[in-house]
C-alpha cells in the first residue's frame, strides 16, 4: 500500500488526470487482474487485498476519507480475512487437476468484454453531459466525521437501522449455515 504522494490541499489545480490517479488506478487494476488470474487461491486473496488497498487510496484521493478508511477497515480487515479463512477451510490452496478456469472460459471473457464495451460506450457517449465541469475543477468538499455522524443519525437513520438488522441477520445466518450439523452422518 502506498501513501498518496501529494497532500490533499494541493488538489485545486488538478490536471484532468493526475499522475497519482494513474498510479492508483494501475495498482488497483493490477491487483484485480491478479486476483482473477492467479492459480493459487491464496495468492488471489492477497491480490484482492492489494486491490482493496488501491481502492481505499482512490477514495482518499477523491476526498472521501471516511469511505477510504471504512474500506480499509471492513474490506481489508474483515472481508479479505474472511476469504482467506474460507479458502483455508475449503482446502482451496490445492490447485485442482484440470485447470482453474472453467471449460468455456472464452465465452465468459467475451461477455465480460461486452459488458465493458457497453459501459465504456455509455460513459464516453455521455461524457459531455456528465455533471462536473469539463476542466473546471470543483472545490473539494470538506467532509468531517461529525457531519457523517449527524447524517447517519438524522437523515439516514432508517437505512442505518435496517443495515443493523441486516448485519444481525447475516451474522446469525452465517453461523447457522456454516454450523456443523450434529445428527448428520458423515
Amino acid at each position: 500500500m502506498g501513501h498518496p504522494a501529494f497532500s490533499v490541499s494541493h488538489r485545486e489545480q488538478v490536471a484532468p488526470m493526475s499522475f497519482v490517479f494513474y498510479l492508483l488506478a494501475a495498482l488497483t487494476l493490477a491487483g484485480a487482474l491478479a486476483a482473477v488470474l492467479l492459480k493459487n487461491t491464496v495468492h488471489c486473496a492477497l491480490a484482492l487485498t492489494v486491490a482493496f488497498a488501491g481502492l481505499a487510496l482512490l477514495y482518499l484521493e477523491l476526498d472521501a476519507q471516511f469511505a477510504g478508511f471504512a474500506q480499509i477497515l471492513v474490506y481489508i480487515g474483515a472481508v479479505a480475512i474472511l476469504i482467506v479463512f474460507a479458502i483455508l477451510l475449503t482446502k482451496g490452496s490445492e490447485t485442482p487437476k484440470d485447470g482453474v478456469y472453467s471449460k468455456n472460459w472464452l465465452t465468459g471473457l467475451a461477455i465480460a468484454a461486452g459488458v465493458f464495451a457497453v459501459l465504456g460506450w455509455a460513459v464516453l457517449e455521455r461524457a459531455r453531459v456528465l455533471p462536473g465541469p469539463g476542466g473546471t475543477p470543483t472545490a473539494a468538499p470538506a467532509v468531517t466525521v461529525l457531519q457523517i455522524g449527524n447524517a447517519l443519525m438524522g437523515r439516514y437513520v432508517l437505512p442505518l437501522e435496517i443495515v443493523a438488522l441486516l448485519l444481525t441477520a447475516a451474522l446469525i445466518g452465517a453461523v447457522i449455515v456454516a454450523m456443523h450439523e450434529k445428527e448428520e452422518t458423515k
Partner: protein
Amino acid sequence: MLMQSDLLTLSSLSLPMPPQAWIVRWLWLIPALPILASGIISLLKQPQRKLSAGLAIGSLSFSFLLSFSAFAHTMGERALLLYFGFNPMAHDVVNITWFQAGATNVDLGWVLDPLSAVMLVMVSFVGLLIFIYSVGYMERDENFTRFFCFMSLFAGAMLGVVIANSLLLLFMCWELVGLTSYLLIGFWYQRPSAAAAAKKAFLTTRVGDVLFLLGIVWLFAQTGTLLFYKGGAGSLEPSALTALLAQHAGLGLSAATAIGLLIFCGAAGKSGQFPLHVWLPDAMEGPTPVSALIHAATMVAAGVYLIARVYPLMAAGAHAGGSTAALTVVTWVGAFTAVFAALVAVAQNDIKRILAYSTISQLGYMMAGLGMGGVAVGMFHLITHAFFKALLFLGAGSVIHGCHEEQDVRRMGGLRSDMPLTFVTYAIGMLALCGFPLLFSGFWSKDGILEAAKHWSVAKTPFYMLVFGALLTAFYMTRQVAYVFFGARRGNEPAHESPRVMTAPLAILAFFAMALGLIGTPAWPWFRAFLEGRAASFDLHGFAEPGLFTLMGTSTLVVFVGLGLGWWLYGDKSPAPEQPDALEKVAPLPWGWLCDRLYVDELYGLTVIAFYGWWARVADWLDRRVWGGAVAGVAGAFGGWARFNRFLDTNWVDGGFDKGCEELASGGGLLSRVQNGRVQTYLRILAAAVVGLVAILIWSSRP
C-alpha cells in the same frame, strides 16, 4: 335324274292359300315328345324300369303316329297338286322368329316336304322297333332307366334334325345328337375302352362339326337368313342360290361350292366318311341297340340326310346332265370310303366291327349315290339300308345275347340250329345288304346307285369302284354268316334263342327289308317320283331302259361271285380260333394290313395326336411360364410397389414425423442445456442480457 333347279313354292303362286294343315302346325310335337319323355325319365329315381321304358316307347310311338299322318298329308298334298297340274314341290314351312339381335332375326322353323316326311317315318318306326327290342336286351342291365332316358333324348334330337328348316335349329339338334351318341357309346363308362371310344367319337365328329359350323355361319352371313325356305327368301331358294353362285370365294370356287364343301365336312364326320371314319368301329363299345339305332340306321344317316337337305346348294350352277365341284367331291369321297371300308371289313373278327365297317362302306355308297344320282337315289338307299342294317345289328345283338356276351365270330358257329329265327332274319338282312337280286330291297337301291354311276358324266371310275365294293360286301358277309351260323359250335356253352320281345322286331324289320324294294323298282319308281314331285305309274316298260338289263346282270353276277368265293373259303368249315384265317393263308401280308385296319388310327396317332400332345405341352409351358409369369410379374410388381410404399411410409412419412419429433426433443434437449444447474452459466446469461439491454437503452436514447 337330277332335281330340277327351279323350285316353286305354293306361296309364290298367286293362289288363295289353304290354311296350313294342323299337322304342319303341330309338327314340332314329333321331336318334342321324346325329349319331354327323356326329361321326365331323368327326374325319376333309378329303378323305375317299367315307367321309363313305357314313357320312351309311348312317346316315340306317338311321334310315329304323328309322322305317319304327316307322311299321309304330304302324299295327299302331292296328289292334290298333281291333280291341279301344278308342280308339287311345296315345302310346308312354319317359321318362328326366336329373337332379334340388332337388325338380324334369329329364326327357328320346321319344314314338311317329301324328304322330311319319309325320313320322319323311317326314324320313328325303326326307333320304335329298336326301343321294344331294348326292353329285352337291356333287361339284365342295372342302368336300364338311364339307357331309355338317353335313347329318348337321341330320338327327339334326330327327329329335330329331320324337320329343321332353320340352320340354328339344325345345328342345335345336330350337336344334341352328337352328345347323346357320346353318352350312349360310353354307356358302360366304367370300361376304359368304352370311355375312350366315346371321347374318340365326339372329338372326331367335332372336327367335322367345326367346319360345318363355318359353313353355316358363312351361309347365314351371305344370305342374311337362317331359314332354308321362307317364301322365296330362304337360303336354299333360287334367289339366294344365284347370289351365292356369283360370289367368289377364292381358289376359283364360288361361295356356293365352298359352303357346300364345308357342310359336307360336317356330314363326313357324322357319317363316317374317310378320313373321319375312325370313330365308328370303336363306337361298337356301346350296347347293341345303340349301335343299331345310332350307328346304323339314323345318326350316321344324318350326314347323308343333311346333304340331301342342302342339295339345292350343292347342285347349284350345274348344267343339265353335268355336275358341280361340290357333288364331285362328295362322289369321290363316298366311292373311296365304300371300297376302303369294305376291304377292312374282310379281315375283322368281331361280329359288330364287321357290321360297323359295312356301315361305313354303305354310307359311302349313299354319298356316292347322292353325288351322282341326286336326292332320290341316295335317300332310297338310306331308307333301305336303315332297315336291313338295323336288322343285322339287332340280329347280332341277339347272337351275342344267345352266346352269353361272346362277340368274336371265331368262337361262334353252328347257331343255325340253336337260333333259327335269328338265323332266318339275319340271312334276309345279309342278302339285302349284299344286294341279292330281285327279292331284296338292297338290290334295287344299290342298283339305282350303280345306274347313276354308270351314267355319270365326269368319270367312270366310281362305277368300277362301287362294283368292286359290292363284290367285297358279298364276300365278307358270307364269311361272317359262315363263321357265325354254319359249321360246328366252337363256343363253350350252348346258345339259346332270344325272347319274343327281341325276335319280333327282327321279323318286322326283315319283312320291310324285302318289301321296301317294291317302291324303288324301275317299273314303279314311286319313291323317286315322290321325292321329285312327279307322278309315278306302274309301267313294266321301265325295265326297257337301255343298259338296264346289262347293269342288273352285272350286279347279279358280282353278288354271286362274292357269295361263291366266300362260301368256298369259309362255308361249313369251322377253323379253331387259333388257326389263321383261310384268306390269311393265301395272302398273309395284305391280310395283316387289313387286320390292322390299314393303319389309319396309327397315322392319326403319329400326326394329329402327337401334334396335339406337343401343342398341349407348349400351351402348358405358355400357361405356366408366360402367362403365369406375367401374373407372377404383376403380382411381384404389386408386391414391389407395396414394399416401396411401405418404405416411403416408414422412412419418409413416419420417418419424417419421427425425425421432427426427434429434432423437437433434441431441440428441447439443447434448450434444456441452458438449465444446466451451473451458476456461472446463469450468471453469464444474465450478463449477456444486461449487455444487450443496456446497448439498446443507450442506442435508443441517443439524441
